[in-house]
């Protein structure tokens, strides 16, 4: 990859962010607020220790969700069902984890395993339907999302509920052996203020591990090679001995397994149970982050942090009487703009290559003519 090509690929996300800022500015100006004031107060608010911790906490589930989506993207599979997979996985993980108590590392591992398993089963249904019945995964995962919502509501109300007399509808609270410690010591270790009223979630370590594993899997294993080959040229991959059906099912299972972990940072670090108001929307925003980061382990981390930053810094806007919802517009615009920008940049590269090839053949022809 040449330097120019790399600059070109950085151009796409950068221009998308600029475009989103412009749209947000127009929206803010239309309602009579000064966008520059809003952005500068967002920035200064978001650079305190407390905000950084909150921003990273918000980025963790988005990142895991993005990885789950990206695994599928590598071979052109669209797992749009991360939303349902992580919610139902969190429900089961919370229920199992809340009903037992054991040695802490084992307890945490068990919860993670349950979540991964349930997520994989839920996405596996879509994978199975695709390879046996030819049902497109986009449709089946959308349907499975809604089935999951209903199933969660049913199970939580009738079977997994902590105590029917309690007002809150939730699974039993995890015993402390099923919590993960916070990482606030990192701030003091590097000489920053300790965040106030907020804990940097310990699940960060696992999220980073997921990112590293994802990188290794895609770039350093045979499976990863076959995955990318199936995505780039399914016909050629099949001819070279990749079994397409097995690929689809395995990829869906991995994607769903990763998706199962999306809700765990909240469960380990914050709510310690599956509650009725368990945070939603990570699945769809994860798709956005995967697109923003172009399926790259590092790119998606930056994208997740950007979304975390936007969510966190939006909080200051309300205090200044500026509608914080402008951030949601920015997030939506950024996704749409980034895919359009990648498309435009790709066309630019394509055109350049065609031009270069044409030039090369012309000079070759001329040389031949001269020689003749």
């Amino acid at each position, binding site marked *: 990859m040449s330097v120019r090509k790399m600059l070109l690929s950085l151009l796409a996300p950068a221009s998308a962010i600029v475009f989103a800022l412009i749209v947000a500015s127009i929206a803010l100006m239309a309602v009579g607020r000064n966008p520059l004031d809003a952005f500068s107060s967002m920035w200064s608010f978001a650079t305190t220790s407390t905000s950084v911790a909150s921003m990273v906490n918000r980025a963790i589930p988005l990142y895991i969700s993005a990885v789950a989506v990206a695994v599928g993207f590598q071979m052109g599979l669209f797992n749009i069902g991360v939303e349902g997979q992580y919610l139902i996985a969190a429900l089961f993980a919370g229920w199992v984890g809340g009903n037992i108590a054991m040695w802490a590392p084992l307890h945490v591992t068990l919860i993670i395993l349950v979540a991964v398993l349930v997520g994989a089963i839920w996405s596996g249904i879509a994978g199975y*339907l695709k390879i046996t019945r030819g049902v497109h995964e986009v449709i089946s995962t959308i349907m499975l999302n809604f089935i999951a919502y209903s199933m969660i509501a049913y199970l939580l109300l009738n079977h997994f509920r902590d105590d029917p007399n309690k007002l809150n509808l939730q699974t039993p609270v995890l015993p402390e052996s099923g919590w993960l410690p916070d990482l606030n010591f990192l701030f003091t270790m590097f000489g920053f203020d300790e965040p106030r009223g907020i804990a940097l979630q310990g699940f960060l370590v696992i999220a980073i591990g997921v990112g590293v594993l994802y990188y290794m899997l895609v770039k350093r294993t045979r499976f990863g090679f076959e995955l990318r080959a199936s995505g780039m040229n399914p016909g050629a991959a099949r001819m070279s001995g990749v079994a397409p059906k097995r690929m689809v099912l395995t990829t869906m299972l991995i994607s769903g397994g990763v998706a199962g972990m999306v809700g765990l940072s909240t469960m380990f670090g914050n709510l310690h149970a599956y509650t009725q108001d368990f945070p939603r929307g990570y699945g769809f925003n994860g798709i956005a982050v995967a697109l923003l980061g172009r399926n790259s382990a590092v790119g998606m981390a930056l994208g997740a942090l950007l979304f975390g930053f936007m969510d966190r810094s939006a909080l200051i806007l309300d205090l200044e009487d500026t509608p914080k919802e402008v951030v949601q517009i920015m997030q*939506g615009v950024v*996704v*749409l703009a980034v895919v359009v920008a990648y498309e435009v940049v790709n066309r630019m590269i394509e055109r350049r290559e065609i031009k270069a090839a044409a030039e090369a053949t012309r000079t070759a022809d001329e040389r031949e003519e001269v020689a003749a």
Partner: protein
Amino acid sequence: MTNRLSDTSTEMQSKRSLLDSKAIRYTVFALAGLFLLSTVQAIAGTSELTSSGTWAAAIRLAVPIMLAGLGGLFSERSGVVNIGLEGMMIAGTWFGAWAGWSWGPWTGVLFGVIGGAIFGLIHALATVTFAVDHIVSGVAINILAAGAMRFLSVVTYTVESGGGATQSPRIKDSIATFDVPLLSDAFNWIEDRAWFFISDVAGLLAGITTKMSWLTLVALLIVPLTWWALWRTAWGLRLRSCGENPYAAESLGVPVLRMKYYGVVLSGALAGLGGAYLVVVQAGIYREGMTAGRGFIGLASLIFGNWYPFGVAAGSSVFGYADALSLRQGTAVHALLLVAAIALAILAVLAFTRKKTTAGIVQGIAAALFLGWYLVTDSVATQVIAALPYLVTLLVLAMATQRLRMPAADGLRYRKGEAV
């Protein structure tokens, strides 16, 4: 030459008779279904399965789903997959409520359509002009629409107006309803007699002819209009050809990009109309999240209806009916289990007579399971009803993939002049 001409004329004739026999067949099916419902109703001791109130509610609940589905139909027939229907519908609810609050219901309807069409235009711009992946664009539109409407609520509604960040003030007035003269009274009278089957048919007809909103009538008329526009006009043929083989269409001089724009913008407009219907006819107010996945159910009804307008109408009616039952009387839903059991048993018998043993066995087991479910329990959880459209669609997709056929070039990226 003469030979070929006569060929086409006989082909047309056979098509005509096929259509007629189809119409007759569907009527017979519908009557048989109704007969099944009235039988079960007699066994289960409820009258809600076929009461005019249930039918009226079913229509009200089915219309928004149907409009979203028809929106999806225009888009997908032109070759663009539209996952953004939900977002376009959200835009329809917001603009419908805002304009309805400001100027009255019909203006609300108009603005709902415009609001949906704007997001349709964005989808078209991304997928048609920039050749972005259709699913990606659709997901982005859903995120964008939800965020943008929240923003608009915050900046538009003050506490004094009675609205807020998550809901609008109540809209002015409502759209008038009408009874079909004579027929409405006659059907209601027959329904009240409680004659087996006859009163049930009358209940259905009374539900259609009594207190119907004018907007419902408009929405129902869109179904045949869609069929006519897509299957009986040159414009429709061109639009469909873009969904089947855009490069062939291009070579014949069809402006493919423009046709796709028509399809996707119309799709947004119809989804927006569905959203406006929710506000203007059903709720009288905008509430955040009031679409509750109806855009996706519309998509489901599109698949269920095999990418045909009347199929979409049938699919959305089934989903609307189940919704109406659970809203009106939870116990009536329980009787549906028996309906399912009997229907599956009949299908199993039919399969055996056609020597399809495996299908017959599967259907027979399913029938037994439903019967067991009916006998063992005495109510159905509301969550099951909520999941029903999605579950049914998934089952239909898994069972009948051979019979379903989506437009051949649906979802594929198209760039002008790239024919291979």
